[in-house]
């Protein structure tokens, strides 16, 4: 009895999830098909699931006129994601280790400092002042990832993970004469691999998708990331369409073509979309790891 019931429930859930994922997929399919359509037919007939008048013109146009810029933005994005993830993981695990060490007197204070920033923040203005006037992060490559080096949530995730490693292992290492450096690099990091992969993925995704830091800190086009290029384009269209443009004296600026917008979207999403299915299992596994303590 119980099994048939749960079977029925399972079928229901599967159907539900299938419908839900189709709904999520629709915009993406429309974007891909839009980017492969011809501009004239999109303008005349609107979007459809299959490309209208299949053509690669838009991509040729994008790469023809903006190739250099797109490639640069791509490489900045990649660089920021790589550098950002490596340094953020390093900083985060180090902090998490310190907070998780048994017998360290100030660990609770440190944990509280981090926790405090989750509840309260100084706001944008002081942040901007600090970043530009004191740390001079504007228009530098490091400005694109340094402000995000410590994500407190991920730090606590990692702390929990470290705590789930049996203390005896650490103890025996200590008896063998290992210092904190040795314990951290030779024991904790290898044992915490799954947690490490999880937070790396979170960070990588965050750095790849970020457009806020370039918006705030970068004016030099050479440091634009691909997401910011995209944001820039969308923000301009939004503004011109909103009617606020009339305040700037009826400025008419030809908005970018519909198909170009879609092609940019595809270019931005592509790497993540390709990688995600392969990496996704780490997300799930990583989040529950450390949540159950024996």
């Amino acid at each position, binding site marked *: 009895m119980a099994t048939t019931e749960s079977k029925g429930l399972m079928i229901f859930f599967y159907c539900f999830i299938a419908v839900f994922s189709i709904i999520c997929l629709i915009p993406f399919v429309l974007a891909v098909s839009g980017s492969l359509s011809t*501009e*004239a037919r999109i*303008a*005349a007939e609107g979007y459809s699931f299959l490309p209208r008048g299949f053509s690669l013109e838009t991509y040729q146009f994008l790469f023809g006129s903006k190739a*250099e*810029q797109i490639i640069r933005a791509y490489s900045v994005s990649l660089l920021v994601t790589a550098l950002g993830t490596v*340094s953020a993981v*390093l900083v985060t695990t180090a902090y998490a280790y310190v907070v998780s060490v048994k017998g360290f007197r100030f660990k609770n204070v440190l944990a509280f400092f981090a926790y405090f920033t989750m509840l309260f923040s100084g706001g*944008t*203005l002081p942040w*901007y*002042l600090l970043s*530009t*006037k004191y*740390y*001079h*992060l*504007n*228009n*530098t*490559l*490091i400005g694109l990832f340094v402000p995000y080096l410590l994500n407190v949530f991920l730090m606590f995730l990692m702390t929990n993970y470290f705590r789930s490693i049996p203390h005896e292992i650490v103890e025996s290492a200590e008896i063998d004469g290992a*210092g904190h*450096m*040795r314990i951290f*690099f030779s024991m904790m990091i290898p044992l915490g691999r799954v947690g490490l992969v999880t937070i790396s993925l979170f960070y990588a995704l965050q750095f790849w998708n970020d457009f806020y830091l370039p*918006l*705030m800190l970068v*004016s030099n*086009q050479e440091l634009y990331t691909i997401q910011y290029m995209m*944001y*820039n*384009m969308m*923000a*301009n269209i*939004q*503004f*011109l*369409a*909103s*009617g*606020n*443009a*009339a*305040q*700037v*004296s*009826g*400025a*008419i*600026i*030809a*908005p970018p*073509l*519909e198909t170009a917008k879609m092609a940019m979207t595809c270019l931005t999403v592509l790497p993540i979309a390709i990688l995600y299915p392969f990496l996704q299992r780490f997300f799930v596994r990583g989040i529950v790891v450390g949540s159950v303590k024996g």
Partner: protein
Amino acid sequence: MKKNRVWLSLFLTFAFLLSACSSGNNGSANTNAGSKEESASESAGSLAPAKLTIVLYGDETNRMKELAKTEFYDVIKQEINAEVEFQFLPWSEYAGGKTDLMLSTGEDFATYTDINYMVKSVAKGVYADLTPYLDTAPDLSANVDEASFTAFQLGGKQYAIPVGNKPNSAEFYSVLVRQDLLEEVGMTSVSSLAELEEFYDKVHAIHPELIGYASTDARRMLLYDYTDKNLYWQNEFIALDESAEDDQIISWFESEDFKKYAGLMHGWYQKGIIPKYAATNTPQLQSDWNSGKAIFWAGTAARPFEGAATISQAVPEAKLANYFLGTGRPKISRGTYSTAFFVSSAAKDPERYVMFFNLLQKNQELYDLFAYGIEGTDYTLDENGRLTKINNDALIPDWLLMNKNFIRFDNSVPEDFIAEYKAWDDGAIISKGAGFNFDNTPVKNEETKLNGVFTEYLAPIGSGFVDYDEVYPKALEKLKAAGLDKYIAEYQKQYSEWYAKHN
């Protein structure tokens, strides 16, 4: 092994420190470049070298980037001995966002503004007072209307320098019509609301896929049909009657005129002249217009040629023309400026900024350079001075610079249209409210609440999405509760004081 780890972590720390210092290196590299250039410019006379940052909104094109480092750089250096850095921000940051942050954190820059943003920012003290430096912009003063300067004064002080001088009276008071469709259905012109609707019906019969009006606001173009007054709006709530010589303001939403207007719009909405999706997806309207899927739009003097370029990508045979739905009321102008530049109060050398603005409107040669680029490389001129662009990259946005003394038209614009454009402002009057800036501090709360009520109730009534009789009583109640009376009284008080002083 342990030593290795220590070294590794030391190395990483060092690497971080090093990369953190690289910003400092950039700084010194720039100063080197500066000193190299110093000796180069003699014609800028005794001026000390200066560095200026000009923020522009929109996309930076490749050509703009190139010119900013070469010709623009050289010319500006030579003229006013300054190095100008052009920074581009997305339009979402205009009059707020990062612009606000940059102002409040005391960055040294200049960019353009509208009157609303100016009033807000001056209250915060983040705009520099430019009155003392006006003398350093003689060419700009000669080429820009005096009334445009007054518009950007507060308490007798000049807080922003207007640029541009173009016929822009009666903005949105005309109907911009697809002339090609008009001719297709056998009509030649449109001169009344009845004819406009006839035009719509005829086109709709042949092309049911086209929408009628590509906007949700037609209070200006329909003026001739619902009132005898010559209304000019100060904001969403307040209008002036330009045909009366008094200081009375009109509470727009409480007027009979609004009722009649809402009725007309509701008719349009029901008839489908305004598409059903307009209520939920307003941005789509302009996209439709741009892709040639709409029959008419609100017109301005320049829209027939500014807009034609966009539409012709989708509909090559499209032609545009302006018509008024009535006659006998003078066109109203808010001033002929395009926009105005302010300088942040933290700027070290506001005077030099003003000198830079002067260059933008100084003479034909500089105008051509900033708006169109280099002759032969970016554009060519024929014997009539008509422009053909070789390179379509936008430079300093030409809508911003647009000055009727310097503007060049391209070959596709007919001669009679240019004549019409140049004569557009003939007989126009400057609004009696031009130069008045409302100080909203006493009624700030009321204003915020009123804006909420406007979006929720009045905008849909005004666009005809809902029936006036059904919704208006509730809307009025909400307006009163939000403090409409207090707001109107405060506005009237300030306006009367100002009016008495200036008349």
